[in-house]
């Protein structure tokens, strides 16, 4: 059977200016403009929001869960960790 589904777009949501855009989910849409509209309905109606990004899911290059070596750290590198002082959480910009 022919696949009649639209492509998916990953949705990134920004709560307020200066905050990072955070991945919140995906929508099916015929193009990016409509994807933004659907993203607004699904992710910006109740959550406060100042900006949305949509990115075609197929445009994302990702690592493979099978490829564990990619993240492997075998030697003790704890001397690199900033563990002897408390870094304050980033202050809100507004």
């Amino acid at each position, binding site marked *: 059977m022919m696949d009649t589904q639209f492509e998916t777009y990953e949705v990134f949501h920004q709560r307020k200016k200066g905050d990072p855009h955070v991945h919140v989910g995906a929508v*099916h849409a*015929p193009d990016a403009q409509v994807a933004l509209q*659907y993203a*607004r*309905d*699904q992710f910006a109606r109740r959550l406060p929001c100042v900006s949305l990004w949509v990115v075609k899911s197929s445009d994302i290059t990702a690592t493979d869960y099978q490829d564990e070596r990619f993240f492997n750290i075998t030697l003790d590198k704890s001397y690199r960790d900033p563990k002897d002082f408390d870094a304050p959480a980033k202050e809100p910009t507004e």
Partner: protein
Amino acid sequence: MTAAFSQEAVKTFLLALADDELMLGHRDSEWTGHAPVLEEDIALSNIAQDELGHSLVWYTLLQQLGGNDPDAMAFERPWKEFTCCRFVTYPKGDFAYTVVRQYLFDEAEQVRLRALAHSSYLPIKEAAAKILREEAYHILHSKSLVERLGDATEESHRRMQAAVDAAFPQALGMFEQIEGEDGLKAAGVFPGNSELQLQWLHQVVPVLSGATLRVPVTEANGSLAVRVAPDTGGRRKDHSEHLRQLVDDLQAVYRIAPGARW
């Protein structure tokens, strides 16, 4: 106020606005759980709620002029007492019809609200400015679907054209004259339905034509002449059986326990 006008005429005007929003909102809500894609299901349900919210704004203004409370207006009136245009009472049809109807309605609401934002009648002026902000999104949604479905595939074009053929004469019924309209015009409450229809035509004809859809309108020397008879009657409470069915459905739960607190 530039001229005297009857409060009855204002009430007639507000009632028509409120009833239109209520009925279209209900028809849109019939897609909840049935739209062709999940994203549209959510979008249409969202729009349905917005339209119901707009009807509440107008019913509340009516109440302030001595009318019944909004719940009574929506859930206790017999179907023959509503003054919505027939256009908003027809069954939801296929998705193409729903898209075309919503688009034609949204454009009419845009031109009406823009005019009402300059109304000489302060409560209407303030309400219009508030609703207008929400409507900007509706028009974006329905217009982008019309532009895409008009010439996407052979089937989408055929369905959209059939929808325009059916909906266009019905849509003209949105601009049916109401009683006391001349007085409201003279007083600057609103510019009158024939003026609004003209502004509406100048919005919808280029968009539909641009989407490769034929419209029954002739353009000559920059003016637009409509070639079909409008489907009027709703403002005079002359409705089809479709409204009876709609109101039965709309009021069914309320009638089980009138006045219950939820």
